[in-house]
């Protein structure tokens, strides 16, 4: 089928990332004493959610041809906010969660507004706003701590069965129709919901396609009547939402908040690596959030293997860097090939 071949060809980067992920993940599970068990899957999913969400956040501005250096900071800010707000009675928690997600979204919108109306390059605008967000996070939580509702934390970091059992849904999760889904880790379920309810509709909206158009050729997009400002702001706003989601989940996972500046930076840098590994062009215009999610999973799968191969902790960064460099090089080779042709006619 001709269409199929085309689609495969256009998603080579993604296929490559999926292959890499499967390689690392299968090796890990094969050598793990409890490999391929639900427990390992849940643990892996929990550990991948935050970096996955932050990588998705990074993707949207990158598609529009910019970089967002504040994704780690937004994640940290929402993490600290959640450690204050997500506890108490049921409705208080729901409200807390909504406020956390809204705060991330707002931070993203501010980034977009600074870039569009301030006419500042994204990389420098978000470097500055990122510092501001970290500042606010430190103000909220000067020392690590805080409290997140234990039940909620337990329910959302386990599988679907535990979630239902905790909140007494569907016969405490024993309903027959639920059985095929009971093993799915909650982080995976949440991620799937986000992809189907937010990312895919965005991608298929006029604004979303405008984001791709801008990254591909801003001049041509303008001449074609794309509303440049609106699309750019939307890109950063969605990035803020995704980063906020990551921060919220980190709070659930660790039951606390921590305005950890080096950690924020590491998440930002890893998000860029995940975007590249996933096959999204740093020049914009092609790729997507799902690609970056896979890219993030590749990065996590690499570090899982350190537990198996018993590499001295001091050497881990070295190996992580080497494997990452290799993975990024494979992903980047495609970009180089494309660039060569058009080099000077831009």
């Amino acid at each position, binding site marked *: 089928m001709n269409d199929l071949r085309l689609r495969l060809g256009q998603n080579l980067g993604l296929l490559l990332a999926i292959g890499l992920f499967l390689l690392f993940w299968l090796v890990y599970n094969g050598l793990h004493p409890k490999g391929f068990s639900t427990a390992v899957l849940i643990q892996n999913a929990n550990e991948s959610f935050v970096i996955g969400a932050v990588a998705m956040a990074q993707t949207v501005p990158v598609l529009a041809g910019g970089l967002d250096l504040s994704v780690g900071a937004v994640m940290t800010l929402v993490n600290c906010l959640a450690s204050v707000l997500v506890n108490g009675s049921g409705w208080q928690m729901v409200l807390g969660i909504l406020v956390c997600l809204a705060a991330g979204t707002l931070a993203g919108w501010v980034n977009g507004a600074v870039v569009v109306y301030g006419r500042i390059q994204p990389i420098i605008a978000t470097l500055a706003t990122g510092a501001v967000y970290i500042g606010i996070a430190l103000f909220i939580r000067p020392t690590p701590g805080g409290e997140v509702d234990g039940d909620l934390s337990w329910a959302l970091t386990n599988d679907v069965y535990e979630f239902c059992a905790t909140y007494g849904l569907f016969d405490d999760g024993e309903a027959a129709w639920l059985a095929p889904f009971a093993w799915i880790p909650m982080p995976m379920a949440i991620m799937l919901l986000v992809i189907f309810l937010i990312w895919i509709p965005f991608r298929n909206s006029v604004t979303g396609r405008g984001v*791709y158009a801008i990254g591909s050729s801003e001049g041509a997009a303008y001449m074609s009547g794309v509303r440049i400002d609106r699309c750019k702001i939307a890109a950063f706003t969605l990035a803020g939402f995704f980063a906020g989601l990551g921060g919220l989940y980190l709070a659930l996972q660790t039951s606390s908040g921590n305005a950890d500046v080096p950690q924020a930076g590491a998440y930002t840098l890893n998000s860029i690596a995940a975007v590249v590994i996933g096959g999204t062009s740093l020049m914009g215009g092609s790729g997507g959030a799902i690609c970056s999610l896979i890219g993030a999973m590749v990065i996590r799968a690499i570090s899982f293997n350190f537990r198996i191969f018993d590499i001295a902790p001091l050497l881990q960064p070295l190996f992580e860097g080497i494997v990452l460099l290799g993975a990024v090089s494979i992903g980047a080779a495609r970009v180089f090939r494309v660039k060569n042709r058009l080099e*000077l006619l831009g």
Partner: protein
Amino acid sequence: MTPDNSPFLELSGVSKRYGGVRALEKVDFACRRGSIHAVLGENGAGKSTLIKIIAGVVQPDEGTMRLAGQQVRFRDPLAANAAGIVCIFQELSLMPDLSVADNIGISNPPRTRLGLIDKRAQRRRTEELLARVGCEDVNPLEQVRNLPLSRRQMVEIAKALGRGPRLLILDEATSALTSSDVLKVYDILKKLREEGLCLLYISHRMHEIEALADTCSVFRNGRHIETFPAGTRSPDEIVQLMIGREMAHVYPPKPEGRGAVPPVLEVQDLRWGDRLNGVSLEVGKGEIVGLGGLDGQGQRELQLALFGVLSGLSGRVLVDGRPVTLSSPAQAKHRSIGMALIPEDRKTEGLMLPMSIADNLGMAAMGSLTSGVFIDPAKERAAIQRMVDKLKIKAGDVANPVATLSGGNQQKVVIAKWLLTEPRIILLNDPTRGIDVGTKQELYQLLRDLADAGASILFYTTDYDELIGCCDRVLILYDGRIVRELQGGEINEKAIVAASLNLGADAKAAPANHSGISP
């Protein structure tokens, strides 16, 4: 004309200036429904500015525009589109990473009830439009970047048709098409004419205009010279109208009766993508060789290729009879080759605007101004002063940013910067664009002095006067090849224009040259 056949688009007294340059001067222009109206003129005659004003890309300084009797003023291309004016520009306006269907549906895609893009409907519409332009072989899912240039141009035409134009402007829309596609486009345009569209057709290809146009308008120096029904003037007469009579500049005398000179730069069958299709030339010691032809026939690419900027070249380049590989400007500049390129756009490629005049001057020759590994300030100062004096650069203080200088003086800085490297081969890319007549004369004299001192100069200019006044020989490029070499008395305006339009012996063969070009 009968009243019911009133003009669809009417411009009166429209003027536009860019800085001190008059691009359009009190232009009155009208075109009607159901006709193909060709706009003719030399480079810089004002055609591009005219269509940019109509399409809302730039706003006129004065004058009014009426569309179907209503006075209009477009703020941006979006507003012009809304009024039914659709333009196919020379530079393609497609997004390379998006699929054909996404490109065609970019401004107004079909939507589902949820407000999202209806991919199926979009694909159907794309297939319909592609079928209309005879491109059924293009898969709507294909990314535009993977299409050959000729297909891209057809997609561009399909995209324009998809917007339901009332006035369609085609600016050199056939420049990259294969000859069979050109025929398809003819049929489409004739069909659109029958449907009552108003078509503005800008092309440098005389035979296309003969085949298509109902009415022709000639522009020259920003003025509308004449409008006449097609077929009432011979190509010769049209060329005469296009060039007019104006020799504005004064040139230094050319050396007389020089014999054969040994070639310093030899180029053999240089090819690059579909922009250079086998260029061969020689430039001798002390010779000024002009590169002529219409804009965008490969002149710019030729110079960039020689300067080592392009990759993926084939062909041979010899300097002093030795083959050289050109892989970077740094290498081309090296003493063993000694090449310099004065680029077209001094603001982006020639100068670092915020840096000082002195820093800019010293930039290219840095290597020769050192003692040990450090830049020697005394040497640098002396060299810079030498250049400021030699080229009479009017600068208060060389420590000021170069952006504070006038255009002419900025251009002198660009040239001086390269003269400091003592080049033997100088490539010039339209160096006198946008500078005043006085400075132009100084530059002409400078070029002649450099040539007399032994430099070989390859001089691309869009101004035919300069080709005639400055150059010992003139090579005319068309479609990435040299189609004509003019020497001595042959270098006159008529010969240059005729060769640029590729009229004469090989005019009929011209479209066929496009076939067999891979993207």
